[in-house]
């Protein structure tokens, strides 16, 4: 874990309010595991940052050859808006690598379930797994077509992508959980890896429980520090409160207490 600055080397605008920021840092590029995240300053003015707190972002993809990694950012508030305006060459303060990571059971088919910007940790998962063989499936839901991003990149890796939109503007009309139910009908020896908004994760966990399928979820919550010192990122599990930045962000989906785990 380091507190360091990484240089912004590429800025890629995607659909809607999403974009990819590529940073140069060979160490992160070499070491990041799928699901791990970084705390990133939302203002490069280190003297008097505003907003003050760093923001958590999953490592999206890595290029060990180029010594760079990327993050996927969706603009939703002040911090992400400012990040969308970072200039090329900016040296952005950050802390990482942080958190645990998805652990895939090689004996089971892996299905990734992503809601909106919850797609973020799965590209790296696909990058890592695709070499290990085995077909990979991504179920990807969003409100509308413009919220679906980087699907081609997944397809280029050889991942099968099934998409849904609530407004029907792309893929199946409906929710990503509908896709999951359909999928599970004839694939019982699976494991689910999910990331997205709380209510989606809760729905996924209900379905997984019904089908008795293992589930790992990457949870979202406010994070004050990202490295286990503010005690602010507690989520409730059947084993009690757990700091999401330390014991997570990936949790056993069957042990989450969704009602009492806060919301962002």
């Amino acid at each position, binding site marked *: 874990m380091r507190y360091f600055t990484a240089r912004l080397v590429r800025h890629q605008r995607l659909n809607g309010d999403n974009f990819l920021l590529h940073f140069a840092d060979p160490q992160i590029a070499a070491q990041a595991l799928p699901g791990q995240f970084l705390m990133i300053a939302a203002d490069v003015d280190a003297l008097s940052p505003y907003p003050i707190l*760093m923001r958590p972002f999953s490592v999206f993809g890595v290029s060990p050859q180029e010594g760079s990694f990327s993050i996927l950012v969706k603009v939703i508030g002040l911090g992400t808006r400012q990040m969308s305006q970072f200039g090329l060459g900016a040296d952005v303060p950050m802390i990482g690598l942080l958190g645990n990571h998805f652990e895939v059971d090689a004996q089971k088919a892996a299905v990734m379930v992503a809601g909106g910007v919850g797609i973020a940790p799965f590209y790296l998962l696909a990058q890592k797994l695709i070499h290990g063989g085995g077909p990979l499936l991504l179920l990807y839901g969003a409100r509308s077509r413009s919220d679906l991003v980087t699907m081609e990149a997944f397809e280029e890796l050889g991942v099968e992508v099934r998409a849904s939109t609530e407004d029907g503007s792309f893929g199946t009309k409906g929710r990503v959980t509908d896709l999951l139910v359909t999928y599970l009908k004839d694939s019982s020896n699976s494991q689910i890896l999910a990331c997205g908004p709380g209510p989606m994760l809760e729905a996924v966990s209900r379905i997984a429980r019904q089908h008795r399928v293992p589930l790992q979820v990457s949870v979202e919550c406010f994070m004050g520090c990202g490295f286990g010192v503010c005690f602010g990122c507690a989520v409730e599990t059947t084993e009690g409160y757990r700091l999401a930045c330390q014991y997570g962000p990936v949790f056993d989906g069957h042990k989450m207490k969704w009602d009492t785990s*806060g919301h962002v």
Partner: protein
Amino acid sequence: MFDPRIQIAGKNFQNPVWTASGTFAYGAEFEPFLDLNEIGAVVVKGLSIQPRAGNAPNRIYETPSGMLNSIGLQNVGMENFVKEKLPRLKHYRTQVIANIFGKTEEEYVQVAAYLSDHADIAGVELNISCPNVKEGGIEFGSNPELTRRVVSSVRKKCRLPLYVKLSPNVTDICPIAIACQDAGADAVTLINTLVAMAIDIERREPVLSTIFGGLSGPAIKPIALRMVYQVARAVKIPVVGIGGISRWQDAVEFFLAGATAIQIGTANFYKPTVAKEVLDGLVCYCERKKIPDVAALREAMKSEKAQTC
């Protein structure tokens, strides 16, 4: 040359830049970022007799130049602290101060007594000001008489230097500080967080599970500085200044206001090397201004103008 060393209650601190309770965990967490030897003292997360799990989520939220927290004093408990956390900190020259709290006067006394027997540290810091917990930490610190009572009781059983951490949520902080001094405190530290809240307008409910939480960060610095200035003129014991310090310039303001040491809180979260940067900047400033030591810095304000508020 500026000499950053200070002494409080017979304990030597290599410098007056400390880290605040609840924002530096148990210290070791910052080893990846910082040589802990550079810090004057680490004030560890508030300790109680038993471990505590803390409050339900959401526990934190960001506000303009500040943050709300309602951690609920999650901590490992006094025994685990002494067994598991303290030994690691003792590898450093840095002094350790244990922030403590209780539900009742007796609990405060019990934690202080336990630490006096089992912990070789530079002091205990009585948190009589935490606004988060049901059990009423707020009560002690918002009334001079209750403050005097709890501090006196703790003082009797506490053989370590005794710091009392004051609440800013009071009409007049000076009588509380004086009560601490009268009851035998070795120093006062201030301020703790200001009681505050935020509402999620989409969900239409308070953001924090406890409705209210404590406001910290640069937003509160002007309030903290005012209170330090007042208290430093009201008591003779050392004053440790806290509240929104995120740059060396902020720290200098607190020393000029009369602080003998300062603590950095929230800024540790987003600039984990901030303590070192503040120390370096402070030393530079004092050398530029030819100020020899912290005592001289505290006296370096120009003659006081009329106080008119």
